[in-house]
């Protein structure tokens, strides 16, 4: 402690002994260390994204056109994909919030040992391959899957239940993939919450339920908002789960993009669809940032 204090003093002395124009040399350099990442992402991320946006508005002769945008806005088939995408994302977000909040609350209030166990139950699936998990759902819920075999053997049903390759399958798979993105931000906010506040409410005569609803819940709202925004943003762009667990009628914008490129080779329209997806994600993000600030949305909370 003392040693640290001494070197810090030393540091300040050294700093104040520097000539005026070289006032903050240790700050001048850190900035330049960002260059590598900026150049790399500029070339391999920003450039292709901007090119894509350009395509959405360019016609074959090299001019500017709104033809793709008109097509997107007027043709009914595309509206269906948008409705499917947003309906799926809204349901996923709501179910994740309902399942995730109580779990996050328990994690924040449990003993350290129980917390570690619960945390492992969230983190392990979080980092496990989405493909492995989709395969798991196919094995469990497929027509000849484990659960249907059990149900048939026990005589509860006479024909296999259609869990998969419909919107239910997509919903189950999406909630499974995105639930940790809801739990972790809520948990992070609850962990930092000043325990004295709910205790004070209790000692002033509030019932546990009232202390929770009037004190803990409002204070944890930023975490809930961050979780919802994160889940919603990821849900509208999700490709893998709908493609593996959905049916022919569960066409989302993401799968539509893939189809337009693969089957129609219609790059300008695929670019327009991509742009609409990015605008949707950006709108949700801006909305969240407005509610709780950019810092909380992009923060490292719970990620490490």
């Amino acid at each position: 402690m003392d040693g640290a204090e001494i070197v810090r003093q030393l540091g300040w002395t050294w700093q104040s002994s520097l000539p005026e124009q070289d006032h903050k040399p240790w700050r001048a350099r850190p900035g330049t260390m960002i260059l590598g990442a900026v150049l790399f992402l500029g070339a391999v991320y920003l450039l292709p994204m901007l090119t894509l946006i350009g395509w959405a508005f360019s016609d074959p002769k090299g001019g500017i056109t709104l033809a793709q945008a008109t097509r997107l806005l007027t043709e009914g088939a595309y509206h269906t994909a948008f409705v499917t995408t947003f309906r799926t994302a809204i349901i996923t977000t709501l179910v994740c919030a309902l399942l995730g909040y109580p779990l996050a609350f328990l994690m924040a209030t449990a003993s350290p040992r129980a917390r570690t166990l619960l945390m492992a139950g969230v983190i392990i699936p979080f980092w496990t391959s989405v493909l492995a998990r989709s395969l798991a759902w196919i094995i469990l819920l497929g027509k000849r899957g484990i659960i249907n075999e059990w149900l048939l053997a026990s005589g509860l049903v006479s024909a296999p239940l259609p869990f998969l390759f419909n919107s239910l399958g997509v919903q189950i798979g999406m909630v499974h993939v995105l639930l940790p993105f809801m739990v972790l931000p809520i948990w992070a906010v609850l962990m930092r919450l000043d325990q004295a506040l709910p205790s004070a409410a209790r000692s002033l005569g509030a019932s546990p339920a009232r202390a929770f609803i009037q004190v803990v819940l409002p204070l944890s709202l930023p975490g809930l908002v961050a979780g919802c925004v994160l889940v919603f943003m990821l849900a509208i762009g999700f490709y893998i789960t709908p493609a593996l667990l959905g049916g022919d009628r569960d066409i989302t914008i993401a799968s539509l993009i893939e189809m337009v490129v693969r089957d129609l080779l219609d790059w300008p329209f695929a670019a327009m669809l991509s742009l609409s997806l990015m605008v949707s994600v950006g709108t949700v993000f801006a909305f969240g940032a407005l509610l709780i600030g950019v810092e909380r949305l992009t923060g490292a909370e719970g990620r490490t």
Partner: protein
Amino acid sequence: MHPKGWQIGMGWGRIGLWVFSSAVIIFLIAPILVVMIVSFNDTTLFELPPVRWSLRWYGTLLQSREWREAFWLSLWVAAAVTALALLLGVPAGYALARGQFFGRRLLEFVLVSPMVVPVIVLALGLYALFARLGLIGRPAGLLMAHAVLALPIVIVIVGAAFRRVDAGIELAARACGASFLRAFWSVSLPSVRPALISAGAFAFLTSFDEVVLALFLGGPGATTLPKRIWEAIKFELDPSLTAVSTLLVGLTLAALLVVELGRANASRETHKES
């Protein structure tokens, strides 16, 4: 036992909360466990519990050249992605945590934004770029594409760690005559070692498990493990898939263990010093 002031005791509410949360955890974990158990089946059916246990599907996997090649490709791409993401991301995280320069907030936003851009959109943009550069179906293309996803993770984790470390220790090193790079290498970097380990492990997993970019940019020339799995799920659904998935889960557990050990080591050292 230090019950928090806002715990609601061990009443019915608390019991209900435990039952509910346990059910959610089972929902999260059970599918993964099921795949692992089923992978030890001796039949072509997905039976639970297996009627006869065997390592048959692991044997099939080991003997298949396709699976082996896909595994090695994924492994070395992921290793290269980890190296590249750390090389670019650690200095960037440091710059964002310590630097005071114009447009820092905007840059930070742009650098971490690949985390929320739909991967299919990124795949489309990169396909167009790589097609022009002749990088489709080349591991080098995959490497760069995966690095776009891994880099923000490294920047966020390492940046947060640098923010938690007192800049005074770097200042002290500089005051004692260390050059800027020397102070960065011998003082700043060791002070965030657990974060470097997690960032590296998560960058590796991000690339090793990535599907969408691999599908778009891999072409017939570069089939990574996830791309091979995707094709197998779509077209054959053969039981060796459960064995591959079990290996993937094992790899995830190993990576998380490395992260955990790194963190435990660091906290032990802090305790020793204080």
